[in-house]
């Protein structure tokens, strides 16, 4: 089992909300139309039906139709389209959906 970093463990110990734990992935989904992902590390794969993002230790996969990048910068990416699923890709297996 993967061990949490010192920063995460310290934040848990001090009851600091998960939102402000530095560097953690933050995903917001607005209906079926938009996904906002914070603290990503870049795009791994980009197509109309699938966007795969590097999120450090995890890999996030967004599946859908007519997916497009609305805006992107170093930390944040906003995707739109008809969202079908957002999930983490496990090593050696298919993705676990949110």
């Amino acid at each position, binding site marked *: 089992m993967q061990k949490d970093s010192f920063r995460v463990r310290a934040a848990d110990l001090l009851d600091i909300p998960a939102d402000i734990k530095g560097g953690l992935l933050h995903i917001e989904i607005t209906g079926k139309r938009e996904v906002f992902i914070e603290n990503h590390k*870049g795009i791994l794969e*980009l197509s*109309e039906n699938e966007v795969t993002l590097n999120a450090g230790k995890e890999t996030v996969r967004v599946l859908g139709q007519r997916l497009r*990048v*609305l*805006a*992107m*910068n*170093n930390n944040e*990416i906003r995707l739109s389209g008809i969202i079908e699923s957002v999930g983490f890709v496990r090593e050696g297996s298919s993705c676990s959906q949110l």
Partner: protein
Amino acid sequence: MQSAVNFVRGSVLLEVKSSYPERFFNLCARHGIEFWDMTNDGLGVFRIRMTVKNFKRIRPVARKAMCRVHIVKRCGLPFFLNRFRKRAALISGCAVFCIIAWIFTSFVWVIDIDGYAELDTARLLNELSKQGLRVGTYAPSVEMENLKNNILIDMPELSYISVNINGSHAHVTARKRTLPPEILPSELPCDIISDKDGIIHDITVKSGTPEVVRGETVTRGQILASGYVTGRAGTTITTHADAEIRARVWRKKSARMPKKYSEKVYTGREKDLYTILLFDNRIKLYINSGISYTKCDKIIKRTDLRLFGRYRLPISLERATCREYEISKASVSDETAYDSLSKGLMSSLELPEDAEVINADFITSSDEVFAYATLTAESIEPIGTKREILRNG
């Protein structure tokens, strides 16, 4: 809102061709080059939009990602304005226009006066001019408070004045001072004396001693109610007499009217003369100012030039229409003349507010030249005015 900001900042639509476009986008993000509105045609060609500032930084990133980037469309205000960069005359024309507009709106071109119907508008304009507010005054130089105070001092008949300068438009509102009627203080002893001749119709004395009775003939200056009151013990005191007295009053008025008169008959010949009024200057738009008509009416119609139909500019067009006429002799019948005379005489009666005309007799006559009418009007109206009793006699 964001699209408006993007329009002002300017943006470029880029086409990105690469076998591995994700690398290009990741490099852009890492270098702080933001982009938006990404579309994909499905054949590995992406279109993205970014600011002009970011586009200037994209060359090393594209080289590193081994992709081809070219501009599809330039959008926004900077590109729109860039078109006019070489058109110096247009730019300088705009600048001159702005400067002229700024200069012209800094001066007062129109002065509107409101609420001054009872008094002389020309006098107020003259007074405003003396205090430094006239057509062509530099608006910021007008000291409002001083101007208003000085005008109120110089024109005591004014109770209120306000001056608002809105752009090139000065709006002046003035109110006439309404002086209260002169009332004798109630503690002063006084008599009530008749102010006209007549026969007393009714009299009600509230305080004082009545000196006349109903049906008595009174003349102007006669005491109607005295301020002297004699008590039971025989002592006489003075008081402030107060009474409601009405009297029958007769007025006689005469008038005459010529039975033959001259009448204007328009010949149908007209001539229009146009003049432009620019501030106080008149620019004639005609060469020969002499009018050949021997007799004519001059009807002047002035049209103010307004901006957007609202803001009056200091330019007006004046049209003077000269209509030629001839004098012809006409005559009226006696009945028409009497009718006209009687209406005129009735309206010329100077009756007080509460007066009621109970009888009006007309005596009419005529000769070859004139029609005559005499009106004798009988009215019931309040009479009496207060006169102070002087203690030393």
